């Protein structure tokens, strides 16, 4: 793999993670926050594939990425289930409504 290709993939990784963090910080909707978390994880998947490629063990990098996909799906399911509960109980998905505990 070219050095340039690696740099491009690395930039995409950082970009995706950055977009995810930005989305989590500014979104005013729980679903969008969950999407932001997903975008971050997609960046990480790319990072694992890149890591496998650079260190010369393509198979291991890909299998790690696959495992991350599985675990990430579980987290997303739990997060969405919580979001459904929040919508039913609070009547809104706005995270700014979730401040009853602050003091």
């Amino acid at each position, binding site marked *: 793999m070219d050095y340039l290709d690696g740099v491009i993939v690395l930039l995409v990784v950082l970009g995706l993670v950055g977009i995810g963090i930005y989305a989590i910080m500014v979104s005013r909707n729980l679903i969008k926050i969950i999407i932001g*978390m997903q975008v971050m994880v997609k960046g990480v998947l790319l*990072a*694992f594939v890149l890591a496998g490629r650079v260190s010369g063990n393509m198979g291991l*990098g890909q299998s*790690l990425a696959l495992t991350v996909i599985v*675990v990430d799906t579980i987290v997303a399911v739990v997060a969405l289930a919580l979001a459904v509960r929040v919508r039913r109980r609070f009547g809104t998905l706005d995270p700014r409504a979730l401040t*009853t*505990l602050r003091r």
Partner: protein
Amino acid sequence: MDANMAVIGLLALPLVGAPLTYLADRLVLRRGGKPRLGQWITLVILLLSLYILAIFWRSETRREGVWLLVGSISLHWDGLSVLLAFTTLLLGSVVTLFSGTYLAGEKAHDKYFPLLLLMIGAIIGLGASNDLFNLWLWFELMAVSTYLLVAFYPQEKGSLEAGVKYLVQSAVGSVLILLAIALTYTFAGTLQLDGIRARFSDLSAPLWVAGCLFIIGFGVKAALVPLHTWLPDAHAQAPSGISAMLSGVVIEAGLVAMLRALTALGAAETHWGILLMGFGALNMLFGNLMALRQHQIKRLLAFSSVAQVGYMLAGIGVGLAYQQPIALAGGMFHLFTHALMKGLAFLAVGALLYALVISHHQHTPLTVEDVCGAAQRYPLASLTLAIALLGLGGLPPLAGFMSKWQILVGGFSAQTNASVALMIFAGLNSVLSLGYYAPIVNRLYRHQASEAVLKGNPLPLVMILPLLIVALGILVLGFVPSLMNPINDWAASSILGFGIR
């Protein structure tokens, strides 16, 4: 049974047991009975695991640690694993005994014990993994089971809010850990913890970035101060048994995971140690100051956990920075005694909460005013709560004094300005922390009984019994702290002498 079989048994038992307990409770529920079977199966599994741990402890091959290869997954069972597993199993059994009655009225009762077992199994596995990616997998399994347990009351607004905050912060943290793992793998070409240490033998930019990402990522779970904001909500809103587990072992499991990752990047061990010392000071001061202004008891205890993690960080930081096994063993000892004391504090508060609030089918939080004069009607619960609080404050002759003392001794024997200053700071903070522990004890014993106490229901014996067991443990460790020395020293030496086969 040899040592290898014992380790495999310890890893497998809780994970196999989790679905079994769920099935058992569902079957009983379908026949119209009360789901009590799950609790007893959980208790039997945990006690059996403790027995296996004892067998392992008495086997002759244990000293070198156990290296295992299950498929392509490599496991390393050393002192740190033993300490973490012992703490988790001990506290887990007590919590199991306590929780059956506490949750009897809840709808989701049948899901509690399987999730608890899953969490315990994940923590044991986390201590045993010798591979960065596996470490993350166990860590994530623990996280998912705790998400569900924190948001355990789906009808309560506070519970949902705490669950969402906890989930979002932890998930971001775990993404940062994954980035660090990918980075480490890119430059070290291996994921084995000892292999990474050998390959990353000089200070380089990737090592610094990976280490900082590990500290931030695992720091979310271990409640390092700027990253702790989920903790007071989650610990206060979870069912009391889970609060005890969260405070007693889950944040410590985050700490252990961080230690494993940082010792793998061992070339910068001194720097990581100094960084952890800094976080320790920050945690102590901030946790204590925030705890001083809380009115809800469970929230107060949650902030006190932030402060107590500071003591562990101080001990571990001095140990890593100046290669002081005493300080490191002190940090490990404090990990154990804190699990006992904070576990007992949350359980005793949970017992009072049950008697005063939950048995009236309500979910309002318990404030410090509510427990005024509780000693008159609930003498045993109040006594155990007082023992736990004074132990946390570091009064002799309780276990908390002994572990803090060992950290202080370790810090002073390092004989550097930074460590001595940190230890004086820790001592002063200990005094500051009495500023919120002592008033609660005062209220329990010397105030007129509050309205809530007068209207309270009696406590069943099955909730008192676990409190007494842990309180006895705290007293015994206060008088004979050397009981824990073999485990603590082994844990410390397996951190310092890491990766040496």
